[in-house]
Each structure stands twice: as C-alpha cells, then as structure tokens.
C-alpha cells in the first residue's frame, strides 16, 4: 500500500502518456463521462467545482460502460478476404477511475470474448495490453446496488492499480504484475501512507458501503444468494408480460449494460471492398433471434424481456459461475419506460419463494 499526491498522479499519467491512450472521467452537470486525457488537467480537490479539465477519479461509475472501449458500437472486423486483422488505435488503453462494478463487467465480457475454442482477437488484444487504474467509489447514487451482487463499492481485484481518494491524494494498491512494474518504474512518485490516511480511507469505504446498504434496504432489493432458480421458477409467470407493458423496444438497457455483449455481423461494400462490421445488437429488438425462413422464437416483447433476464440470471451463472449484472444501475436510468431491474428482481425472488418446492 502506497500514497500518491494529486500532483504526482498527474505526473504518473504524464509518464505513461506516450505508451497509452489514457481516458479519464470528467464531470458534466451531475454525471461522469470519459474523455481523452489531454494535459493540462487537474485532479479534483475537496469542495472544488470541477470543470472540463478536472479529472474526477472517485465518485461513482461513469455514464458509459467500459465495454465501449473494447468492442466498439460499430467497427470493422474483416476487410475482404485479407488475413491481417484491421488495425484500430495505435496505442493500448489506460482507463483511469474504473469502478468496482465496471471491473465486474470485464469479468463477463472476458468470459464471452476470451473463453472457448475461439477467442475474439480484437477484444483480447485490447485487454491484454490495457492498463486499468481503478478507483474506490467515494459516494453512492440512488441507483447503486452493487452489494446485492456481492460486489463492494471499492475494487479488490481485477485491476492493475487501484486508487482510494483521501485528503491531498490517493492510497495506491497494485493488483497485477503490470501494476507492480509501473510503481517500480515511477517509485519517486510514491510514498508510504500515514496511519491516519489509511484510517481515512477505511472510514470512507465504510461510509459508501453503508450508503449502498441503505439503497438496498430502501428499495427492497434482494441479494444474489436468493437468485438461484428465480428464472426457471417464474418462467411462465405474468411478471414478464406485466413488466414488458411499457417497454418501447429501444434497446437502451442492452446498450448501456456493462455485461451485455451481443452483436451483429454486418457486411457492406466500401470502395468496392467488402467490409465486415461488428455492430452492438440488442436482444430486446424483435428480429434478434429470427431465422431467415421467418420463424421467430421470441416473437413477443415479454418473451424478449424474459430472455434478457434469463441470460443474465440463469445462463451466465450456469456457464461462467457469475451473475451478469453488476448492480451499476445504468439500465434503471436509461430506460424511458421506467422498467426497474431492482423491482423485477424483487418480484422474481418473492414469487419464486411462493412456489412449492
């Protein structure tokens, strides 16, 4: 465990700027968004009103899910019959301020794109070369419920470096070989943390954890220990029809979800060359599973809503041993129809308990 001042964190970013394309969170109105690191930038101090050059390392997850850096919404994955892999960004990514829920998103995406007989060369390349500098949440917003998915609001693994914001700087922990090397190569920027700094971090972690606990209690959100079998028990339930009533089939829940990974391969001619695009797809859209001959296994909207929950809360736990929900709450904010994953889970758990064993 080490300490780094705000200024030295900027120096660290400066030192790795040649090597990485760095993305940092900045605040617009009430929400964090990722932007390309372009000095001069500053790191938010206590009681400071951030501007467009203020890196807000803490607070909560950004608006965007981190998957968008790794599988672009639309990107070329093959050109004609050429054997080489289309190039993307020349430098690997460094993502600063990724939150605990974002890291869980990576676990699901990693399973999809890295595991099995075939790996996705684009995703794997970016993930292998990237640098993840994660950060503790320093507050919770109303839609945060990570604890229900057994995630703490501060990262414990799956990062290269983790930052915990304290007065005047950050407590730094390394979580990988890459992180260790980075610290060693920049050792002049780090110092040992004082006891009271560590105590400050621990107190803040507890405060944020309590805030998420309060969310869970207030919204009556079930914990994942109760999720086993909630889809199968409720397969024929009216919950699906009920919840799908207001759905407008926009697919925002899929797009904004850090674990949703489905895509469409789309071919087009560009300058007489065939270009194969990989485009994010949404399982809520009517033709998602339809076959060319016209048969559609999920003709109705409520079937597609059920499918979305089945994938997250039955398929992934069976195959990857992980619920494909991070508790980030992005889909709650994004849904124009106010379909609330917390309420759906609450209903599913409640009704599953009613079923005879």
């Amino acid at each position, binding site marked *: 465990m080490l300490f780094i001042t705000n200024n030295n964190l900027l120096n660290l970013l400066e030192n790795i700027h040649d090597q990485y394309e760095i993305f940092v969170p900045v605040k617009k109105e009430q929400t964090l968004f990722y932007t390309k690191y372009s000095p001069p930038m500053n790191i938010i101090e206590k009681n400071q009103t951030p501007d467009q050059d203020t890196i807000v390392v803490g607070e909560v997850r950004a608006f965007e899910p981190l998957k968008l850096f790794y599988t672009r919404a639309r990107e070329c*994955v*093959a050109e*004609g*019959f*050429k*054997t*080489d*892999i289309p190039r993307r960004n020349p430098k690997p990514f460094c993502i600063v301020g990724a939150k605990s829920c974002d890291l869980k998103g990576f676990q699901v995406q990693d399973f*999809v*794109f890295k595991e*099995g*007989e*075939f*790996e*996705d*060369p684009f995703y*794997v*390349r970016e993930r292998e070369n990237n640098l993840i500098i994660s950060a503790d949440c320093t507050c919770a917003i109303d839609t945060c419920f990570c604890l229900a998915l057994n995630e703490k609001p501060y990262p414990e693994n799956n990062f290269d470096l983790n930052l915990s914001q304290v007065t005047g700087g950050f407590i730094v922990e390394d979580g990988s070989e890459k992180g260790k090397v980075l610290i060693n190569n920049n050792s002049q920027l780090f110092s040992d943390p004082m006891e009271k700094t560590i105590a400050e971090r621990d107190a803040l972690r507890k405060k944020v954890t309590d805030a998420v606990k309060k969310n869970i209690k207030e919204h009556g959100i079930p914990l994942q220990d109760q999720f086993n079998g909630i889809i199968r028990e409720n*397969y024929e339930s009216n919950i699906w029809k009920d919840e799908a009533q207001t759905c407008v089939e926009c697919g925002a829940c899929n797009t904004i979800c850090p674990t949703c*990974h*489905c*895509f*469409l*391969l*789309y*071919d*087009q*001619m560009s300058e007489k060359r*065939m270009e*194969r695009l*990989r485009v994010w*797809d949404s*399982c809520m859209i009517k033709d*998602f*599973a*339809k*076959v*060319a*001959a*016209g*048969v*559609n*296994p*999920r*003709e109705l909207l409520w*079937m597609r809503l059920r*499918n979305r929950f089945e*994938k997250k809360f*039955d*398929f992934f736990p*069976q*195959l990857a041993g992980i619920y494909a929900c991070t508790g980030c709450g992005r889909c709650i904010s994004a849904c124009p129809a106010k379909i609330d994953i917390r309420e759906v889970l609450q209903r599913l758990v409640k009704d599953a308990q009613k079923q005879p064993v």
Partner: protein
Amino acid sequence: MPKNNPYRPVETEVLDVITETPTIKTLKLKPKEEINFKTGQFIELTVPGVGEAPFTPSSRPAIKDMIEVTIMRVGKVTEKAHVLKKGDTVGLRGPFGNGYPLESFFGKEVLVVGGGCGFAPIRSLMYEFFEHSGDFKSLFFRGGCKTPNDFLYKEETVEWSKRDDINVVLTVDEGNVAWKGKVGLVTTILDDVKMEFKIGIAVVCGPPIMMKFATSKLLDMGFKTTNIYLSMEKNMSCGIGKCGHCRIGPYYVCKDGPVFQYEKIKNFHDIWE
C-alpha cells in the same frame, strides 16, 4: 498480433451451380484454403457485400478441395446466392459446431428422418454412412417433401433406394400423376421401420414443424430421448459462441450444436420456433 481472425471469410470460387428445385440451388465451392468439416458441422457463406448465412454442407467430408452447399431462397443473402454463377467469388468461414457423432452410431440400427431442405445435411451424412457401410447394424431413411418437384438430389435418392445396405422410403404431402410413391407426412411412413427402437438411433433433420412431429412420433415408437439427434436451426451469426443470437437455454447452437440429443434440449420451450 493474433494469428487467426474468426470473422474473416476464406476466398472461395463458385465452381458450379446446380438447380435442384425452383427455390433450391446447390453451389459447388472451392475455397482457397482447405476447410475440413465433419458431417453435420456448418459453415458461414459470405455473399460479398451482402452478408452471411449458415449452411450445413451437403457434400462428402472426405473430399477436401470442394464443398457443396444447398441453399433455399428465403432471405436477403440466399436471394443473392441464387444469382451466383460459375466463376463468381464468395467467402466461407468455418467449420463450426459439433457435427454428428458418427462413430457412436457404429454397430447400431440407425433411422434417418428428413424433410425438405433437411436433405442437405443428410446427404453428407449418407456419404459417411456408405463409406462405413459395414459398421452399422442396419440403416433406414424416411424422407418427405411437399410435392415430387421439391425433392433434392432426385437421382441420388434413387441410387440410395437401390442399395441393399439401406432401406429407403420417400413420401410427398401432395402427389401428382407421375408420383408412384407414398403420399402423406413423413411421420406416416415410419411404422414399417423394423428395428429395436429402444436401442436404435434416430437422426432428424428438416423444417422445425416437421422435426417437432417426427420427434413426438419417434418417442411414441420407443426411441430414447438420448438416441434422437436433431439438427437445430437458429440464427447462428458469428459461429463462435460470441454474438448471442442462437441461444437455447445454456447452449449456443453454433458452438454446442447444431446437432443435439433431444434429451439435452427437450425442456427448453422455444426449440421448435
């Protein structure tokens, strides 16, 4: 730099186009890089600039420099595939999926039930059967189509029916004056199959509705759920278990199928749709 890009098609020459029926054509294809498939596995055919669609090759897997793909005109890609000519260039990706567990059928009695375009994967399977003819206790083929004009591989099916290592019966939903065979759904011509159903193997391939009724009939006859093999048709797009379109329960058809023991998928309620 990763060596393989699973999204890249292999450049492929169209060697010949055979018109099978008014809506079905077979393309003879020569990929520039060898594509070794097992019977029952599928490939993705790219019509350049139009898109991709999945097909199970209908040719003999042992032939390494040529793959035949039988295509019914039903959508955007197949529409364009039907106007391809000899000498045109297309793309192929694959093979993907599991294929038929051929060796596990050895020593057994096998009944193959096919309908319509389902003859395509079955023809490839038949080539394998005939190559290992002595390895089966007995072979039966029951095939059906809408009308006599809709049969695929007309000459070959006649050849099959002349063989003494397989018992072949064909039927049509609707006959015509020239048709001397059976009339009725394929499920109506299964009763004369003489084999020990409890330990026999059944392979079913055809349109979803035909597979549904054939499976139900086979179960009535006494076939075990673990001995009925179905070729599932879902919206397989990437072929590598990533894009999410072809999921059935805990399986991706492109990766865990397309051939499934009925036992594995019988509890998932949307398998026939």
